[in-house]
């Protein structure tokens, strides 16, 4: 399952994932955004792993932001934008 979101004034945020039951699995965030330190990418992927497929954007954004240190730098991407891409990945599948 694949979802993309071009953050307004930002970059392209891409999510690839699978559903195991009603939980997100094998979540991979990618895109042409800027994120430092680069290890934050794995933290975000792991934070999304196991989240309920029914989670709202706000719930997903909170789950993403939770484990990130305050010194993580995001440019062209945000927890909210990632949450939108996740919802789009899930929505496409249900619409198909």
């Amino acid at each position, binding site marked *: 399952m694949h979802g993309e979101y071009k953050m307004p*004034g*930002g*970059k*392209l945020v*891409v999510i*690839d994932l699978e559903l195991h039951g009603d939980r997100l699995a094998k979540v*991979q*965030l*990618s*895109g*042409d*955004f*800027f*994120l*430092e330190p*680069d290890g934050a*990418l794995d933290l975000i992927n792991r934070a999304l792993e196991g989240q309920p497929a029914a989670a709202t954007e706000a719930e997903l954004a909170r789950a993403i932001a939770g484990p990130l240190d305050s010194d993580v*730098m995001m*440019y*062209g991407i945000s927890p909210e934008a990632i949450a939108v891409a996740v919802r789009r990945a899930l929505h496409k599948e249900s619409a198909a």
Partner: protein
Amino acid sequence: MIRTDWRDHDWQLIHTTPQSPTLHMALDDVLTHEVGAGRRAPTLRIWEWASPAVVIGRFQSLRNEVDAEAAQRHGIEVVRRVSGGGAMFIEPGNTITYSIYAPKSLVKDLSFQEAYAFLDEWVLEALAELGIKAWYQPLNDITSEGGKIAGAAQVHRGGAVLHHVTMAYDIDAAKMLDVLRIGREKLSDKGTTSAAKRVDPLRSQTGLPREAVIEHMIATFRRLHGLGDGTLRMDELTQAETLAQSKFGSREWTADVA
């Protein structure tokens, strides 16, 4: 840390014979570290490419961005760089690439958006002198009335910021679209028929040879900020060659975001 200005630093130029894509990736890593540690003066490096490449951003999905079969067919190496941003399609005579390795003090208190524009002010000046009206398009593009000219990316390491930029001197749009998947998707989205509409290269805008554009850019930097002629230290080159092989040439790194 006090904010510094360009002229507070003793800028050094590195402009060598052509090097491989993986060595370029590794040199950016090593030289940023050296400037951050205070072992090297702030440096402007002009890249010369030994072979064609697709350079994908740190967080781009390899399979989403690149048609591996097409890249192989065209003899194009795919490498991943240390900074974020988008994929660059590189052919040696078609591209002008440079890196600025600056102490963080040079961009202290600037927003990311301001830091990108600030570190490329000299380039806009150089382009203006060549008759191209260009400006910064946030977040990280240099554009002109004709279209996009360049894309920039930054990464911070220790006490240094790396700011590197790839400019289109000329472009084989058909080959680029064959190799980059994202190009095709963007085209289908926008319903345009030519990638050349998005990118307007320097060759058509200046009518100058690539080498002349580079010479002019170097002269502008030298005039505005001061610039001595420097060289790569042997230990820097050795370290970069090791990293090029062990890290930047590895499948593990290139496919880190599959």
